[in-house]
């Protein structure tokens, strides 16, 4: 836990984790018995007929509700589907949870027809790269590349940005990938440029990786190491110097993490999708270690690897300390965008409180988006979300979490903000449906 500095006169600073000169190889972890795939979409009444409990699946097979469904995952192991259920995440978001019992005998070298079919379809997609194919087969790769931005007719994409920086503290995944897989990244960048018709990409890296990144063929920009300068909105504002002041979504910029680009490159080169996720694991004693685990690996397997035991009241965070999500079960799996797992002992947790804002202004001074959080929070606590959005810039928030980090009243400000945005957005969506 980082403490308030003795000299509170200066603005609190948080530094991103910087990777060593020669980082240790990630520890390879494999799922022991089961993997769990969380797919962003739960079948409503229509249901799905593509797979059902008891089906055999192969490594690399696409698990989706429909052939052209935008949300899907690629199974990272071969085995048998043992359970399909609903899973409710943050803010009531629904997922389809597909449990797959790993079959030890289902080895890749047993070249059954089924395996070949799976591999062929993927290979074919790679040989004839197009935006369509990419969206259909590559979105399940580690780093979760998002191709949907290309299909928005309102905001044609003008730039491709590859993030060689990590978007939260303690996380080192992207830096590691830049350092080790720059060749694959170059392939990936070329591929994305080709299919999107955009002439070049911009790669954003921390200063110490500037040289390495140079060989990717992209235009290299660096960010400083102070949180949250690697947040996409801030990259747009500061690094890309979009001086017209437009927000990212307005100018149409496609962001890819370095890990995703590298996975795309590798998939293209080999015709086999890489499905190992690189995750920074921080144990209770503060040790940080990179691991490489198949997507879908449950938390339990990772805990066992580190000999960590969880006790009542401990906390496990998927994602960085500022923006991650805490999970309530050791079954929770590694997802394509899980960069970090933090295991916190009960004693390391600061209780949040129900005290009103005391107007100390700490939050306002740290907010990178210049939001008047001391006012905003009053409206949010009172449930007046529309006023909060109209008068107090709710939607300017870039979701860095810094405000909650410094709040003297320990108000869960960030949570209030996310809830308000979510509520307003779902209201807007509902209105559009009605209209």
């Amino acid at each position, binding site marked *: 836990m980082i403490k308030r500095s003795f000299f509170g006169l200066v603005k609190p600073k948080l530094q991103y984790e910087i990777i060593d000169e020669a980082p240790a190889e990630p520890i390879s972890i494999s799922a022991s018995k089961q993997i769990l795939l969380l797919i962003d979409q739960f079948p409503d009444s229509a249901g799905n007929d593509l797979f059902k409990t008891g089906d055999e699946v192969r490594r690399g097979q696409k698990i989706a509700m429909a052939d052209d469904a935008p949300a899907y995952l690629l199974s990272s192991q071969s085995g048998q589907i043992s359970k399909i259920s609903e899973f409710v995440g943050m803010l009531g978001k629904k997922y389809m949870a597909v449990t797959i019992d790993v079959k030890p005998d289902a080895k890749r070298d047993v070249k059954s027809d089924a395996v070949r079919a799976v591999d062929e379809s993927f290979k074919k997609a790679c040989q004839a790269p197009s935006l369509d194919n990419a969206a259909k087969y590559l979105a399940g790769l580690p780093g979760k590349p998002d191709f949907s931005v290309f299909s928005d007719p309102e905001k044609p994409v003008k730039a491709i940005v590859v993030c060689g920086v990590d978007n939260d503290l303690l996380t080192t995944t992207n830096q590691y990938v830049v350092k080790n897989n720059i060749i694959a990244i170059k392939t990936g960048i070329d591929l994305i440029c080709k299919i999107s018709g955009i002439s070049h990409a911009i790669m954003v890296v921390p200063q110490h990786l500037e040289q390495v990144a140079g060989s990717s063929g992209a235009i290299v920009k660096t960010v400083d190491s102070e949180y949250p300068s690697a947040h996409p909105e801030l990259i747009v504002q500061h690094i890309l110097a979009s001086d017209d002041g437009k927000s990212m979504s307005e100018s149409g910029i496609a962001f890819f993490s370095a890990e995703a680009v590298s996975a795309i490159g590798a998939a293209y080169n080999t015709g086999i999708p890489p499905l190992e996720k690189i995750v920074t694991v921080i144990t209770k004693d503060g040790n940080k270690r990179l691991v490489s685990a198949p997507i879908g690996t449950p938390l339990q397997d990772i805990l066992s690897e580190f000999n960590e035991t969880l006790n009542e009241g401990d906390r496990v965070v998927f994602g960085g300390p500022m923006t991650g999500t805490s999970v309530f079960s050791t079954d929770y799996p590694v997802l394509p965008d899980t960069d970090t797992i933090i295991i916190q002992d009960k004693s390391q947790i600061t209780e949040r409180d129900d005290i*009103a804002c005391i107007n100390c202004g700490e939050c306002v001074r740290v907010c990178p988006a210049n939001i008047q959080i001391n006012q905003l929070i*009053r*409206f949010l*606590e*009172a449930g*007046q979300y529309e006023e909060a959005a109209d008068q107090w810039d709710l939607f300017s928030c870039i979701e860095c979490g810094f405000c909650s980090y410094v709040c003297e009243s320990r108000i869960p400000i960030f949570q209030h903000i996310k809830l308000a945005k979510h509520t307003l957005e779902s209201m807007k969506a509902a209105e559009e449906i009605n209209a």
Partner: protein
Amino acid sequence: MGYFELFISCIFVNNILLAQFLGNCPFLGTSKKMETAVGMAMAVIFVTVMAGTITWIIYTFILVNYDLVYLRTIAFIVVIASLVQFVEMFLKKSIPALYAGLGIFLPLITTNCAVMGVCVLNIDKEFTFLDSLAASLFYAIGFGLALILFAGLRERILLARVPKPLQDTSIALITAGMISLAFFAFQGMV
């Protein structure tokens, strides 16, 4: 008293709302939102200046000359009421934009002690015509200032966790008392 002193006196020292207690109903009624407060402040300034000067003329040249001083109250209120009506009609026809802004506040002003109070005070203090004009303007500015400052605080208080029985008017009155106390700062400055 020079105009500078009159300015300080009417706006700060003898603020029509906080020291003379005139115009409290609109003070409490239109201060929940800054926008409303600003609209009301403008409307009051506009009407008070007109009413203050017209009633002065009527009092000095008609009521005094014809020995009808006892009709002061009735004459003033009729003047103010008609003035407000007239201003409302005029704005509606000629400056609809301003009407849209001030319109809803105008009827409220008829029953605003501050406007009537300023007219009566101008007479009681035996002001000259120019004094009355200036005092009406300054008093009205003082009203507007107090109203706007109050709205600033009230917008915040409306979001605070005020205990139930104190909510709304009760806490607003207590806050108004504190503003009135703060205005003691200017005592003796003229």
